[in-house]
């Protein structure tokens, strides 16, 4: 047992699986000698060689397309996109091939690929280094979208993602990479995909969040507890397909729902959660659903980015408003 940061947990999940499954290969820009710009793949090239840990030329579409080609040949590529804002050139390959190859060929060719990338802002990075684009991927049938919020979940969910026979987009909240340390056993134990994780039980209101925003959401829940408000906190974890059942169950209990995400509000994943509750849990609701999200504008450069990302105060106010109804 060792206490590790999320970035170390990710690194160990890679190493564990590469030791046990020779089909796993790692590709991306600067993932080899440099070990990734965040050091997620540090040391892997030394351990597993240049064939299995490959620096690629600078072209995300090519990286994703190459991963498709390799996967159809039975390999299990883990491809890194350096920052989520640079996923756009890869979307054609992800949406039109990775997500579709099994369906297109009726199962003849498949794409067990993991596309990993840092997600979200708050790290004072330059433009295009702070994007939260999960909704774009979630809208595509044939993909799973996963986003851990702790080192242990990063470890367990990444292992599950690598072992999944279909493509998984694995979003790593950049501002959590080194925020906290947590014990992980590094025993190759995967965590289940397609389910929410209940981080806190509560009875007054359900808070659903994922990725880095789980930190602020939990903090809001703790603060509110002091005021006598009991919050149930769910980490969505798999952003697509969504585990609506757990959310609906929780809302049936609490009667109130606040969704927290960093991505822009319009057509974000929060909309899908709220819509499903409006369809299937309407009679359980004691108050209107609330979304606390990034604004429908471009996430600003560092001087203003903290005014963009939802704060604990905004979350707490939303909870109070929903309780006041």
């Amino acid at each position, binding site marked *: 047992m060792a206490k590790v940061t999320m970035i170390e947990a990710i690194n160990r999940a890679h190493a564990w699986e590469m030791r046990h499954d020779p089909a796993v290969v790692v590709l991306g820009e600067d993932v080899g000698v440099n070990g990734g710009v965040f050091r997620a793949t540090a040391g892997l090239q030394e351990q597993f060689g240049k064939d299995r840990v490959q620096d690629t030329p600078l*072209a995300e579409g090519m990286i994703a*397309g*190459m991963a498709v*080609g*390799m996967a159809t040949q039975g390999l299990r590529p883990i491809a890194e996109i350096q920052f989520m804002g640079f996923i756009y050139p890869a979307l054609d390959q992800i949406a039109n091939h990775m997500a579709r190859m099994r369906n297109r060929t009726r199962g003849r060719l498949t794409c067990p690929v993991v596309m990993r990338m840092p997600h979200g802002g708050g790290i004072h990075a330059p433009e295009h280094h702070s994007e939260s684009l999960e909704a774009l991927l979630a809208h595509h049938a044939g993909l799973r979208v996963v986003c851990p919020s702790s080192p242990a979940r990063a470890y367990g969910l990444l292992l599950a993602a690598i072992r999944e026979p279909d493509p998984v987009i694995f979003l790593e909240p950049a501002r959590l990479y080194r925020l906290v340390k947590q014990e992980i056993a590094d025993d190759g134990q995967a965590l289940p995909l397609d389910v929410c994780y209940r981080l806190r039980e509560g009875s007054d209101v359900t808070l659903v969040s994922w990725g880095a925003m789980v930190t602020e959401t939990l903090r809001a829940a703790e603060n509110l507890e002091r005021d006598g408000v009991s919050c149930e906190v769910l980490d969505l974890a798999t952003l697509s397909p969504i585990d609506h059942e757990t959310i609906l169950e929780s809302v049936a209990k609490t009667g109130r729902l606040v969704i927290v995400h960093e991505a822009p509000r319009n057509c974000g994943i929060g909309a899908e959660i709220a819509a499903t509750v409006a369809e299937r849990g309407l009679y359980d609701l004691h108050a209107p659903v609330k979304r606390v999200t990034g604004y429908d504008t471009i996430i600003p450069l560092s001087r203003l980015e903290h005014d963009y990302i939802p704060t604990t105060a905004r979350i707490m106010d939303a909870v109070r408003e929903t309780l006041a109804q």
Partner: protein
Amino acid sequence: MYNPRGSCPGATRRMPARHELIAPRGIELKTVAEFAIKYCQFLDAEGNLAADAPALASDTSELLKMYRFMTLARAFDSKAVNLQRTGQLGTYASCLGHEATHVGVAAAMQPDDVLAPVYREFGSQIWRGVKMSSILLYWGGDERGSDFEAREDFPWCVPIASQVPHGAGVAMAMKIRGEKRCSVTYIGDGGTSEGAFYEGINLAGARALPAVFVVVNNGWAISIPIGQQTATKTLAQKAIAAGIPGVQVDGNDVIAVRHVVGEALARARRGDGPTVVEALTYRLSDHTTADDASRYRDPAEVKEAWNKEPLPRLRAHLTKMRVWDAAREEALKNECAREIEAAVDEYLSTPLPSTDAMFDHLFANPPQSLLEQREIARRYKRKH
């Protein structure tokens, strides 16, 4: 040499005179790299064989096999267009005129190589074991057509050029495993304008992958003639940007195609890296059955292209070699017709897929919500 650009004044007007430096007056610049693009043809449009043709040119059994598949592809194509015209097939992309390229490429490959086609390389696919009924099923709007017999080959690829990184990725897998296999990836002249083409060949070059990229230059990308697609004199020279060899071949000469692709594959198998082969041919048909090329294409150009089409020249050569005559031609045609008839029957008698089919192949582990949607779809299934 047949140059489809001939009819397009834009091309020559726009091409910079000599691809050389804007020469600083009176200054001698050092040359740091030089390149040449070569052209290969053995069998000219009239069926005359070049004196230095390779042994293949007298391997009659192989030539007859190739002629057989070219004839089959031609007949299949005509039948498919017919099925479309009579409402029995969806939009269809004809391979008319491409038979030498398609068959020559496939004939140069090993069965366990992997082919990544675009959408009209039926001659290659039939050679490699894809049933004509599978082809019809796909173009008839049924995904089961892509669950075809060449198990590791890629399905048809509609998003132009996106198959090129696949070919490179497949070759990377082969290289990592130390196999002696290769990937062969097709792309059209229009497709060479997409960044994915270039990204894929650049990767292949940078990692010396066992891959061959066949650019089928049929002169047109729907209504865009090659001269408007690019200012390059050849498409083979696109290889220079990837640091790999590029060569032009008469795509209507099956001997040249097979020879050049064979050499490229041998080179790849030796570990010497990828090659771009530009096959010069012509799209004798409309772009697809949904297109009307008369809107944008000079009929004189098409007529001229018919004079250079691939079948007669090979037939002439075989006739000269005394292994072909009218009776054998007749017999082959009948044999092809029978095979095609059987494939069409199989296609037309394939029952509609169930609505479940759209849900059952998306994931190995489908989420519950998808199974619920499958129920809804069953409920609202249309009567056919």
